[in-house]
């Protein structure tokens, strides 16, 4: 049988209103209301009228203010806020822990390097051959508290035959992930990395940053380009490439210099890597 919830609700609200930590009130109100409903139902089952059952239920509960004052002593606001703060702290620690663990065990398999030979030849060209070599330069350099490294480097070579002139063509590029690690999570991304990075090779060729160049023409130009591909707590990563690599180059060195900070990372192109 449905009780007169209004009278019960009013009793419960009055008692709960004594609790200063408001977040605790709804649960307490609900528990008290459930108790009154149970008592009411038991009395109705004994054969009492709804009106009499309601009166007896309210009488059995006692004084709402007295109950409320006793509840307020248990549900103290500072304990409530302490509990809320502790919960947030635990959640925050879990997120930080997750971020730190992600930053130590990075998985590079998901990097999708764009096709470097797009526009020059396609895979539908039957003379087209593509060769990808994974290199492990194992070099690091430091500046301004950052440690720069190259966790993934691929040397790509595409060959095809120009149909009109029946001339063999070659195109080479180096694709890599540049990582900047800093021990302080709030250090931010290194200043102007994409604008100030450039490369030189063993043949004396210069590969300027795309941002340094006056014209952005096409793949026949030597250049270094790239984009940030995300960060973890302590590491920033950039997916970058060196276009139109001189086929005679034995090594290519990435260089960066800005506001007294510089680094150099050399990639040996002759070392035997894993072919893919």
């Amino acid at each position, binding site marked *: 049988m449905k009780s007169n919830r209004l009278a019960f609700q009013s009793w419960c609200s009055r*008692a709960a209103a004594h609790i200063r930590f408001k977040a605790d009130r709804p649960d*307490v109100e*609900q*528990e*008290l209301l*459930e*108790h009154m*409903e*149970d*008592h009411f*139902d*038991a009395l109705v089952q004994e054969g009492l009228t709804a009106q009499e059952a309601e009166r007896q239920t309210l009488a*059995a*509960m*006692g*004084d*709402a203010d*007295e*109950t409320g004052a*006793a*509840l307020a*002593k*248990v*549900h103290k606001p500072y*304990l409530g806020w302490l509990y809320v703060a502790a919960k947030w702290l635990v959640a925050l620690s879990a997120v930080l822990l997750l971020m730190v663990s992600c930053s130590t065990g990075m998985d590079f398999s998901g990097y999708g390097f764009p096709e470097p030979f797009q526009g020059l030849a396609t895979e539908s060209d039957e003379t087209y051959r593509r060769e990808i070599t994974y290199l492990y330069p194992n070099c690091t350099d430091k500046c301004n508290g950052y440690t720069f490294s190259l966790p993934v480097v691929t040397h790509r070579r595409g060959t095809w035959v120009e149909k009109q002139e029946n001339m063999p063509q070659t195109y080479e590029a180096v694709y890599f992930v540049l990582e900047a690690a800093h021990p302080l999570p709030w250090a931010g991304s290194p200043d102007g990395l994409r604008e100030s990075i450039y490369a030189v090779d063993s043949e004396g060729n210069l590969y300027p940053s795309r941002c340094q160049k006056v014209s952005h023409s096409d793949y026949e130009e030597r250049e270094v380009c790239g984009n940030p591909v995300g960060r973890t707590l302590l590491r920033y990563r950039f997916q970058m490439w060196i276009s139109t690599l001189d086929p005679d180059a034995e090594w290519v060195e990435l260089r960066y210099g800005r506001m007294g900070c510089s680094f150099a990372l050399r990639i040996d192109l002759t070392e035997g890597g894993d072919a893919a």
Partner: protein
Amino acid sequence: MQIDKSLMAGSTTLLVLSLLSDGEKYGYQMIAELARRSDGTFQLREGTLYPILHALEKDGRVKSFRREAENGRERKYYRITPAGLELLQDKTEEWRFFSEKVNAVVQGCAPVGA
């Protein structure tokens, strides 16, 4: 016979923990069980049960959780914890000691030949 309220007040923790010692219960169930076991002598003002339960929970003597009751409705149940069982043991010993001494005094004062 009606019991003096102050006598009840001193033993409510013992009564509540005793009610929970044989299984988890929700609030009204405890009140009904208390009335049944005491033949209706112990009639706690029902609102006062909850500050006691909440204080016991804050001290880790009981633990609450919600689950469906036998009437199909969801209710907040209380279960006694190992710390609660320890407190029950202490309170029981305290009660035995106290009632023994009260009995000794009361009987000692009884009129000769009563």
